[in-house]
């Protein structure tokens, strides 16, 4: 019995150590980002480096702001991601509702066509989209970044799956109450789906937020850059120092990290929803 208890204690110790080590490992890059962002460049590049944050964040930020248009990029990214998310959630839930709750001709073939594109890495349609956008004069515009991904196959798939769980009786009840089909959609189906909508919104927001290759190709002027494009630009332009790049990175990560902490439940359900593609 005592032997067993000692074994258990060792096991517990090992488990905790592992969790702690991994937690620390996960925190190190973020910590280092903060250290780098709050030190002046000279102090940061010395070896051995200073291991704790300084107070130079705002100075670094001021230089970044003066020499680059990074603040505009943050705004661009937020604007694009929010507009995209709202529109795409609306579009996907409309179509998902139709596929889940109505009968119409060619319903199955259309749905399977959409389903088939689910397996494609759609971010790789960069070349034809680039050609299309340059032909219709949409290069360097936000609409070129937003529109192509609105009809997101994952979005419609998730919405169809979730909308199917709405009891038919609920819709019929609304019909009896005198609601039109559109009222049924936005007064009954959408509010009843609130948590799935939140999960989908997070999937779509992260998708757009992390889009890099495509905006890198489409966006030309730095005033239109999104965060990832702007950051990769900073990293290439040698006149910008690491302290400023790290300020930029912090600004790119910290708001979303806070969002993650606040909306953790929705993030997790978003991840799980996104991973359960049948």
């Amino acid at each position, binding site marked *: 019995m005592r032997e067993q208890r000692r074994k258990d204690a060792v096991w517990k110790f090992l488990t905790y150590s592992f969790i702690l080590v991994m937690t620390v490992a996960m925190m190190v890059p973020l910590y280092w980002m903060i250290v780098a962002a709050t030190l002046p460049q000279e102090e940061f590049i010395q070896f051995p480096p200073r291991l704790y944050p300084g107070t130079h964040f705002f100075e670094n930020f001021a230089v970044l702001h003066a020499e680059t248009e990074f603040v505009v990029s943050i705004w661009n990214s937020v604007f694009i991601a929010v507009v995209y998310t709202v529109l795409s959630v609306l579009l996907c839930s409309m179509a998902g509702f139709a596929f889940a709750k109505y009968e119409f001709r060619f319903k199955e073939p259309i749905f399977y066509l959409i389903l088939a594109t689910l397996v494609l890495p759609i971010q790789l349609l960069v070349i034809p989209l680039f050609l299309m956008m340059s032909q219709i004069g949409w290069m360097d515009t936000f609409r070129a970044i937003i529109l192509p991904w609105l009809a997101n196959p994952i979005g419609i798939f998730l919405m169809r799956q979730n909308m199917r769980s709405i009891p038919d*009786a609920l819709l019929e009840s609304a019909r009896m109450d005198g609601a039109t089909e559109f009222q049924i959609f936005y007064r009954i189906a959408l509010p009843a789906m609130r948590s799935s909508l939140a999960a989908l919104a997070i999937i779509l927001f992260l998708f757009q937020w992390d889009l890099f290759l495509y905006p890198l190709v489409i966006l030309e002027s730095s005033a239109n850059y999104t965060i990832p494009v702007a950051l990769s630009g900073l990293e290439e332009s040698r006149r910008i120092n690491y302290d400023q790049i790290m300020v930029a990175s912090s600004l790119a990560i910290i708001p979303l990290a806070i969002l993650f902490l606040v909306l953790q439940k929705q993030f997790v359900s978003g991840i799980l929803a996104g991973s359960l593609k049948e």
Partner: protein
Amino acid sequence: MARIDITDLVKVYDSGDESIVAVEDLDLGVKDGEFLVLVGPSGCGKSTTLRCIAGLEDVTEGSIHFGDREVTDLRGSERDVAMVFQNYALYPHMTVRQNIGFGLKLSSSLPSAEIAERVESVAEMLGITPLLDDKPKELSGGQQQRVALGRAIVREPAVFLMDEPLSNLDAKLRAEMRTELQELQHDLDVTTVYVTHDQTEAMAMGDRIAVMNDGILQQVGPPEDVYRSPANEFVATFIGSPSINLLTAEVDGTTLSGPAGFTYELSNPEPVEGRSRVRVGVRPEDITLVKGGSNRATVSVVEPMGNENFCYMELGEHELTARIDPTLRPQAGEEVAFAFDESALYLFDVDTGEALKTKTDAVAAGIGTEAR
């Protein structure tokens, strides 16, 4: 308030190449203020019929009138009906107050203040006033049930339609709500069509009951009539619990002889005249265990119910059920003799199931049988 007249109703579902007939040539009238129960096994077309009345399904053929108004092609919201669904179908994101008021808000021209008043008074009638600002998921099953009722009542419709509204409640609550629903319907005096698969509920609640099977209306009548004089073997089997005992017997003049030596002498052989075989039915409560007799069966199980005992017996391959006095406790394996009155005997056609003879005893005579 309105009379409902359903004439030659046909509902066919087309699914690809095959079409399924859900309701066949249904004619049914519901009187003004009546409580009619549509009952039958699942898939018998009772819900489809209700949904046709509600306007949730398009009618393939036939017509539906509410009073003098033809409603066959009207949308549900234009028919002046209210429906209570099996799972209540409460809008999960709305409070009880909003749930009850939603229909009035959308489709009536009442001013908001009056809608609010009506919601309040309905809530008071149902005793759910304290719950008005709760969301459905915070309520118990019984409370949700009341809200669903409230949502129907508040619209003051000409017709109430209820689709198995009590089937999600536990047994005790179901019995309570049964009474309450009946009282409510009686007070409001609104024509009601109520669908259930539970024959006990149908018997207990309906002014009249309409039994359906395979899309065909089998019989309509007051519960007692349907029980005592079923139109056919299906109705006899479906109504009554435990189920009626049935077996096939050969007819030889006035003698019926069944399996395992079962014989019965008819004093009035008129119903079986010209037939060689017939289906014989006896309700469990009409079977009595007797001291001596020619009809014998082996007891398999006795279930004590407290006020009575259910005695399951084997007659050859057949199982017989008898409801017997709680003081009688035959042992399993024991051979017992049983008997029943001819007045309690049902006879059905072997092929069509049509009733040839049903109970003929007077209602009061039942007491005499038991006293014996």
